[in-house]
């Protein structure tokens, strides 16, 4: 199956080359990284490659895809030996048609648009903390959907924009392309002058217990300071969770390219409250909370170091320390050589 998908990608590249060799050059972007984590004295190591392919076809079509290739090395207990397992995930492979300013139609496999984490913050070169929050497991249906998505701006002015995303996902049990049957939407209001965005999401799972999920997200990045505030609240049958995260790059001290200006402290607080036991919902079995302190350092050439410490408090279980350390590199280049004009 993976070979077939790759063959399709290569074919698309070839076709787009014939369509327009100079203006619509496909790009290969993405990130590579190495992450280590120590949770309760047990070590986990993960080398990761996450390539992104974008193939524009003509003026309105786009094929885009992202994969996640990682080897997961895990220790058998605090002083045990290491075992490893490889994972290859096709995160999205979608055909987009930009019908007009108010409508883009996406067909294929896409990231489920529920709140902001799944679509915007999962790339390893964007996320400021290594671990996903508890709320990321709510309303996303394993994170990926196979089906049809409509998105666009209902209204877009200089003062505000009202955006929407609506989708239907079918049940798929195909290896590497699994998805749940469900439907949902996200509706958001964005104010460009203050870079403030508030969104609300809903998902109805159309299989099994047919659960409902609701969410609210907020993002604020003022122009006056390199501050970023993000947060989410999400509710589902098994309970509800929230996270709020703030980061501040110290670029106001001697500029963003100074030694201190490359530093970015991060703090995230998250909690989960269990209401009903739901097996395999990706959430903690009991109430949980975790404050996390992180520090990112931005090197030249898109290289970033990140380190963080968190304390996980689980009800009825021993609390654990979570130490993370990682390095990421973001890359971008055209899919084939050619003239620079």
């Amino acid at each position, binding site marked *: 199956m993976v070979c077939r998908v790759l063959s399709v990608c290569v074919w698309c590249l070839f076709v787009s080359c014939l369509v327009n060799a100079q203006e619509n*050059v496909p790009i290969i972007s993405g990130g590579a990284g190495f992450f280590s984590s120590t949770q309760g004295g047990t070590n986990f190591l993960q080398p990761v490659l996450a390539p992104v392919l974008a193939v524009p076809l003509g003026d309105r079509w786009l094929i885009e895809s992202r994969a996640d290739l990682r080897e997961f090395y895990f220790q058998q207990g605090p002083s045990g030996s290491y075992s490893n397992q490889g994972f290859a995930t096709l995160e999205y492979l979608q055909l987009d048609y930009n019908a007009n300013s108010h409508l883009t139609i996406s067909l294929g496999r896409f990231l489920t648009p529920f709140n902001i984490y799944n679509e915007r913050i999962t790339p390893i070169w964007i996320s400021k903390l290594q671990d996903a929050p508890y709320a990321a497991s709510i309303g996303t249906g394993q994170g990926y959907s196979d089906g049809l998505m409509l998105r666009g701006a209902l209204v*877009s002015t200089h003062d505000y924009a009202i955006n929407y995303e609506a989708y239907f996902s079918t049940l798929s049990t195909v290896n590497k392309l699994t998805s749940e049957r469900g439907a949902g939407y996200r509706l958001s209001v964005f104010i460009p002058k203050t870079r403030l965005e508030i969104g609300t999401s809903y998902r109805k799972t159309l299989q099994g217990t047919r659960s409902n999920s609701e969410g609210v997200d907020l993002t604020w990045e003022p122009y006056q300071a390199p501050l970023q505030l993000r947060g989410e609240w999400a509710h589902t049958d098994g309970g509800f969770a929230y996270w709020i995260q703030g980061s501040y790059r110290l670029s106001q001290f001697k500029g963003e390219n100074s030694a201190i200006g490359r530093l970015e402290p991060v703090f995230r607080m998250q909690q989960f409250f269990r209401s009903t036991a739901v097996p395999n919902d990706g959430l903690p079995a009991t109430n949980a909370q975790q404050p996390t302190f992180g520090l990112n350092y931005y090197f030249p050439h898109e290289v970033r170091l990140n380190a963080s410490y968190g304390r996980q408090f689980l009800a009825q279980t021993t609390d654990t320390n979570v130490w993370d350390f990682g390095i990421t590199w973001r890359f971008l280049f055209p899919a084939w050589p050619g003239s620079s004009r």
Partner: protein
Amino acid sequence: MKRLSFIFLCCFTFLFCTLAAAQQKQNKPQTGPSTNAQALPPSRTAEGEKLFRANCGRCHNPPESLSPREVRAVVRHMRVRAVLTDEQERAIVKFLAP
């Protein structure tokens, strides 16, 4: 065996693209957004830069270098992610690749 083939194919593709990019960079002008902003009159770039900061810049920094050949694909990709309109897409393309 299939897994080995897959890993080999990935490595080969990555190596090919890296070599291609290395060759490309010999002739590639380093036209990051800040350079473009300096090269053009403020009136032409102001709107694109403003839109870039308001939309794309909310999640990530601009790439350190971006050749004009890459801009269209990058902005088309961003258009879908950041729900940009036709006018916004054109303005950002002008800002990144005047």
